[in-house]
């Protein structure tokens, strides 16, 4: 745990207990529907904005972490998972049931900007409509899609062939208005700087961006539905590796592991926690290396040495992870209650490899700072561009290096500790610049902190008594959490808060499996950062967000 004590002036407003919060919004609360992680307040569909804004201002719940939509036999339900940026363990859920025949609910967008995309997704996949939503379109599926795939009566056999006339033709004729000086430009889905299949509908005035509208969903693989069809015990764990596939696999696995372990009350042996922490931080280094390298590509042009250097250093981490897990990308190393196997033998060699890497890292970082953060041209390019003020970042639910680059001191590893993090000595890096440079700089500094954590883990593991190396606790072969238990749990992924909402229905498979992707929320801030700036800054901002489309689209 960081030695920094939380600043007492940051203390959240008084109403932090479940009952105190309920009293605040008592006029709207119909009943309680508590989740395992947080109190849940059931409110009427027309009281969403009132409830959320009261909780936001009076109870300090200023982070709309996630919106989960789901359909029951008798109703639809939207769940707003609220947290506090100052203290993420201070949580509450606002549950909004809507009737089957008229699933309409008030939008939360005026209170939290991030609700925009989350509610679009809820509409797209589940079919709940949000009144007064500023942009009620589908988000992940094509606009012509028929039906809502996560609704109960969805017919999977139904053909999705839609007449051409109902498609918006991507190759429309030129449209020239008589007035207006703007130009519409499609950036992506195939563009060197979109880091995957992202499509930015951009309106330009000369070279300046007037408006940018990210179009996502090209990489939507129904990850939530896949997980809902898998058993808790064995079949879900391979999939998290495929969300943020930029070597952040173990961090993703941990998100699922944490949610289900808390739900099914599975203990994790201390030894396994240390190994998990070690592996997760190695993944973070690998992910940040790639983020830094590709950011350099975006700003320098495509023949830059920095990218190759970053990939070279990432390669060393990948080799270590391969030694540990047997895989280079899709690790599948965590198990419920621990990890799948112990450290590779001979252990001394393994520790030696890690120590060699850690010994070389300061020199490598110095080189990166010489090449990137100390470079005056890069500073001219990135300082004061893509500005994301902290208030805006919070409203969009930005987390991870994006939030920390805007001066928001929010890191679940410290604020909502899990694993072995609270036993170790490390710091949360923040920077008040709020610009592209800050986000880059935060990532560079976080490499150092991750290295510190790894070093301490190696020290611990080296001296770990041989008779106490339990890698997995005793977990039943089949896990059936009790009926209708709900939990939302998050870990600090490479890109930010990676959360999982689980609802059980008494079977061995989850009834609802919702992934809160940090990239999804972070990408939403792109228009805020880019409108009014130049195309190169748009590209740099996109690079500084460090999105992975596999995680955005799931």
């Amino acid at each position, binding site marked *: 745990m960081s030695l920094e004590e939380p600043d007492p002036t940051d203390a959240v407003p008084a109403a932090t207990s479940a009952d105190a919060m309920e009293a605040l919004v008592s006029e709207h609360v119909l009943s309680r529907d508590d989740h395992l992680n947080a109190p849940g307040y059931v409110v009427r569909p027309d009281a969403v904005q009132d409830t959320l804004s009261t909780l936001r201002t009076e109870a300090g719940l200023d982070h709309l972490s996630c919106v989960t939509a789901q359909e029951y036999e008798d109703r639809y339900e939207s769940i707003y998972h609220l947290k506090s940026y100052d203290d993420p363990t201070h949580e509450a859920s606002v549950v909004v049931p809507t009737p089957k025949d008229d699933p309409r609910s008030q939008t939360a967008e005026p209170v939290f900007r991030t609700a925009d995309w989350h509610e679009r997704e809820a509409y797209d996949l589940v079919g709940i409509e949000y009144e007064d939503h500023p942009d009620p379109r589908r988000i992940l599926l094509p606009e012509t899609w028929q039906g809502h795939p996560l609704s109960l009566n969805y017919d999977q056999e139904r053909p999705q062939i839609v007449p051409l006339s109902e498609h918006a033709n991507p190759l429309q004729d030129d449209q020239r208005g008589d007035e207006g000086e703007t130009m519409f430009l499609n950036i992506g889905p195939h563009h060197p700087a979109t880091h995957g299949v992202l499509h930015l509908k951009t309106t330009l005035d000369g070279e300046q961006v007037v408006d940018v509208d990210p179009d996502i969903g090209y990489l939507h693989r129904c990850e939530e539905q896949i997980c809902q069809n898998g058993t808790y015990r064995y079949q879900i764990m391979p999939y998290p590796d495929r969300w943020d596939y930029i070597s952040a696999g173990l961090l993703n696995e941990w998100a699922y592991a944490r949610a289900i372990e808390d739900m099914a009350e599975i203990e994790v042996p201390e030894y396994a926690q240390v190994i998990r922490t070690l592996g997760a931080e190695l993944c973070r280094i690998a992910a940040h290396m790639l983020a830094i390298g590709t950011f350099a590509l975006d700003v320098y042009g495509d023949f830059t040495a920095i990218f190759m250097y970053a990939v070279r250093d990432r390669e060393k981490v990948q080799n270590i992870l391969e030694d540990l897990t047997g895989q280079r990308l899709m690790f599948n190393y965590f198990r419920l209650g621990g990890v799948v196997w112990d450290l590779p033998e001979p252990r001394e060699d393994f520790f030696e490899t890690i120590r060699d890497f850690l010994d070389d890292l300061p020199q490598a970082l110095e080189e990166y700072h010489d090449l990137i953060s100390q470079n005056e041209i890069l500073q001219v390019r990135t300082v004061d561009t893509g500005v994301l003020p902290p208030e805006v970042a919070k409203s969009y639910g930005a987390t991870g290096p994006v939030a920390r680059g805007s001066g928001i001191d929010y890191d679940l590893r410290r604020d909502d500790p899990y694993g072995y993090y609270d036993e170790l000595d490390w710091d949360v890096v923040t920077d008040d610049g709020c610009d592209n440079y800050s986000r880059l700089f935060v990532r560079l500094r976080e490499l150092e902190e991750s290295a510190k954590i790894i070093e301490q883990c190696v020290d611990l593991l080296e001296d770990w008594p041989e008779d106490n190396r339990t890698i997995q606790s005793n977990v039943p072969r089949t896990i059936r959490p009790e009926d209708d238990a709900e939990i939302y749990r998050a870990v600090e992924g490479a890109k930010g808060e990676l959360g999982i909402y689980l609802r059980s229905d008494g079977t061995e498979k989850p009834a609802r499996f919702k992934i809160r992707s940090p990239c999804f929320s972070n990408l939403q801030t792109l228009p805020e950062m880019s409108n009014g700036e130049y195309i190169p*800054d748009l590209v740099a901002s996109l690079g500084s967000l460090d999105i992975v489309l596999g995680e955005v689209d799931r």
Partner: protein
Amino acid sequence: MKASWVLLQNGNATGNATNATAGGVARPPSAPLADSIAGMLGLDGAVAGPWAKRKITAAFTDRIAVNRVGPFGLLIIVADAVRLLSKELIVPDGVDRPAWDIAPIVIPFSALLGFAVIPFGSGLQLADPETGLVFAFAAASIASLGVVMAGYASNNKYSLLGGLRAIASNIAYEIPLIVTAASVVIFAGTLQMSEIVAVQQQTLIEIGGVAIPQWFAFVNPFAFALFILANLAEIGRNPFDIPEAPTEIVAGFQTEYSSVYFVLLYLGEFIHIFLGGALAAALFLGGPSGPVLPGFVWFYIKMWAFFLFTQWARSAVPRLRVDQFLDAGWKGMLVLSFANLVLTAILVGVIV
């Protein structure tokens, strides 16, 4: 490439005519000479593009690069030529046909034309008109026209943005480049390339028996640095690869070109780099002069050194944003180049 060769010879002829009227020593026009110089440059481009560039970039980025075909991977040049030339030439819908086809010829041709007046040393110089330096810059600037044609005619918004960037930035680097070169002209007192080179052979200072020649890079290192910087912009390399700017506007003006047209554009870019290097060598680095080795070889070494420098910049220097580049051009390079010109003029006026 036939057209450009003919025009090169025309350039040769005019050059001789100018010489004749000025009473200079006219070298007989020689078709084989023109052919061999054009061929040499074509070879330079061929070696630089598919092979040297890869090897140099690889060295900067800790890689090995081409090493499979032939010694040091050199035969990749043949393989790449066959590959590129045998690809389908895709003509996108709605391109502005004559302009779209002419642009990939204009760009390499303009660079080749500039070489007509470059003194390679060892007697290799196609033409030596009194206005040689002006001619070289005039020819090189035609490339901007080609870029604009390509950008505008491609019927692609990224190409258009590239073309617009090329226009917007043109004056920002072209004027500083020429004004800096003009300071050399004030020193040398002539625009004739052979004379400018000859002036630089005189001894500037003698240190321990070693005569340091009066290369203008030694006489005025500031002008040399400014010239190299503006030159980077002229040839469109980092930090000034604004009209192409991959990762921002895909490939700028050349986004829609494939197959032979792409080869021509690519070749044109490399010949432009060499022209930039040749001008720097002739104006500031004493042209073909150097110890032991023949002049021609020295000239080549200097040209390739400049090429190496551009590739270095490409590997290590971030790209400026287009408006920042215009700022740097108008408020920085332009002011400095005029200051340099005025100071040079005063100094030369006082000394001479």
